[in-house]
């Protein structure tokens, strides 16, 4: 009697934890490339822990259903069910966002800030993590990754369904792309 009730109480109290545990083995496989908790230590690969759930969900589904080009991820997510994708998005969105501020030259930062103010600010905020912004965080995201991603948006070779992002990226001057990426990469908390 006592045992059943204890386990019932445990089940009740830990219900969310257990559900999360369920996705954790799968989520852990992501760590190999994206770091523990989605904090990447490698410049070409984005940190994903703490990004908006809707964004994570959307991109994974777009990859899965062939609506968006990814270099590697599109092949990987095709093996996941929609529920798994939702749970993964939820899991990584729940992780704290750990920016990795990367130093850059003053001139580059100033140039990048101007470009970001012109092009990126409305949706991503000027710090990349403005309180009134719900777009993917950019502060302390890896600049190299950001630049590669912008190159994808600017190229005709990739299916990038976010029309506005595509337009914004294409409207930028080539050397602003790198500067803006470095500017955001340099931002901290």
């Amino acid at each position: 009697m006592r045992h059943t009730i204890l386990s019932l109480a445990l089940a009740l109290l830990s219900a969310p934890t257990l559900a999360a545990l369920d996705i954790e083995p799968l989520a852990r496989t992501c760590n190999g490339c994206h770091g523990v908790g989605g904090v990447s230590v490698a410049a070409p690969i984005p940190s994903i822990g703490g990004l908006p759930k809707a964004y994570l969900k959307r991109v994974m589904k777009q990859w899965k259903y062939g609506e968006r080009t990814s270099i590697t991820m599109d092949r990987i997510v095709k093996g996941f069910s929609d529920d798994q994708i939702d749970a993964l998005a939820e899991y990584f969105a729940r992780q704290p966002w750990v920016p990795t501020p990367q130093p850059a030259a003053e001139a580059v930062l100033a140039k990048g800030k101007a470009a970001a103010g012109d092009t990126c600010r409305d949706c991503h905020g000027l710090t990349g993590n403005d309180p009134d912004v719900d777009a993917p965080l950019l502060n302390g995201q890896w600049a190299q990754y950001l630049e590669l991603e912008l190159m994808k948006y600017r190229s005709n070779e990739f299916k990038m369904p976010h029309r506005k992002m595509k337009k914004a990226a294409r409207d930028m001057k080539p050397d602003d792309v790198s500067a803006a990426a470095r500017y955001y990469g340099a931002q901290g908390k």
Partner: protein
Amino acid sequence: MVGSAKAWCAILLLAGAIFSGTAPAAVDGAAAAAPAIENHRCLRCHADQEEKHVVRPDGTQHNIFIDAQKLEHSVHGKVACVGCHRDVTKLPHAKPLAGAIGCIECHKQEAEKLKRDPDPQKRERLDVVLRQTDSYLHSVHARPNPKNQAAVNAACHDCHDAHDIGKPGTLQRKEHRLKNPEVCGRCHEKQKNDYLGSLHGKLITEKQDEKSAVCADCHTTHAISSPKDDPAKLAITQNCGNCHENARKTYFASYHGQVHRLGYTNTAKCFDCHGGHDIKDAKDPTSRVHADNRLENCKNCHKNATASFLEFQPHGDPDNREKYPWLWSAKRFMQALIVGVMAFFWLHVLLWLFRELMDRFQGKGFNEDLDRPDTVFYRRFTPAWRWIHFLFAISTMALILTGTTLLFSHTGWAKAVVVFLGGTQMEGIIHRTAAVIWLAIFLVHLAIAIINIWRKRKTFEWFGGTSLLPNWKDLRDLRDMFKWFFGLAPRPQFCHWTYWQKFDYWAPFWGAAVIGSSGIMLFAPEKTAAFLPGWVFNVATLVHAEEALLAAIFLNSVHFFNVHFRPERFPMSTTIFTGAIPIEEFKHDHRMEYERLLASGELDKYLVKRPSRRFDLVASFVTSVLIIAGLTLLTLVLIGLSTAK
């Protein structure tokens, strides 16, 4: 069992934790400290011409497009998007926005802020908004939707595109107005389709003529109630008239319109004849007012309406000589009559008053010696005449009261009286009952008079002193009266009937003929129309009213003066109720008759004792009441006349 209690505690604690964890966030709202999000950031997505739609996770497609230019020029152009869409604290917002925005709340707050604004225009505009919101809150649209009690029938945003509310006088306003039928038609589809086929609808859709009527012009914009209810019907008539001013004026002058204007809708209204949404030009064979179809409209109420009804002019205008010559002539004639009669007699009254007052100041004229009141009276009226006059007076007043409420249906007193009497139908019954009594008395009097004359046929002098027939002496008396008024001659001496008494007597003959005949026509329109053309109703309505007006004014002013208010008689004469006139007064007013009777020795036959004190009081009371009633009626009529538009 102890264990299970613990488990329950755990569950409760857990529930408590969840509740306490989430509740405050919901109450405080994130808006308080949220940074403002500039509109251009919102418009980056929402004003994108190339991507007007989004597909939600459930697969449905939604238009999120907002015309940035229109927004900028709208009354809300300077308002922050997130000022209304307060649930947006971050961009991009993943969730669709809540449909209901606190328009009313916000406008109230704005009004509070602008209460003391020095710019009166601002306050005025907000007043309009506040009035409209208030009307809306009491409208049928603000009631819970029967299919979904959580929602109202129509909320602000169902009709208004808040992003495109133009300032008054702008193109945006015009566009919104032209879109009105489409907006209402989202729910009222059948009505929209009817409307689009109508004259109004075609002007809107084909000519973009914003002067044509749209839904809101008849139904109002915010104070929308069920069109089955009286307030809505009354409002619709008013609103039709806002454009069709002359039609409303002539309609209100008609019996239909008079009843309607009193607040009663059991009468033909604009849409009863013209149709509501499907109004068409009278030349259109499918129009309800096309000559071929019009009788059907009449038959809705007048089941036995004949073809003559078609000649009735529901919007007959007595001021339009070309279109309605009969009506025009009737009005001119009646007005000339009224003006002539009243001008003459009011002059007569004024001069008479002047003369008597002058005489009085000079110590002349007839003055009752109050120390030695008359004890001998002359019996002037038999009980039959006294009753006849009493009933005649009562019924006339009843007719005036009930008739003028229609004539002056625009006045507040008319509306109050009709409510007091129990509605237009009750009033109709009273009016017609009084009319029957009035006519009956008239006929009874005629019979008695004829019998009396027949009895005295051997000796009756048709143009003698006791006859009511006018004679040459009356003309001379009139001339002499005017001389007296100006102090050029002594007051003339009269026989049994003075000329003004004869006028009082004969006037109802004319009145009975005009009012009676027109009244009967209006009383039984279907029977009348069986042998008379429909336009007689227009004429009948006009002359009935004009003649009644003449009678009402004449009786309650001239007649009252002649009998009661001239200084010799003031404040009243009770003779018509006591039947007796003090002998001195008789001598003064009817000297020649007195002398004739004295000479012929017949006088004693007519001499009576002074009426008992109680009888005198009763007569005074009744006279007072009737005088007061009459003066009241006169006042009401004059109010009506002076406020008529």
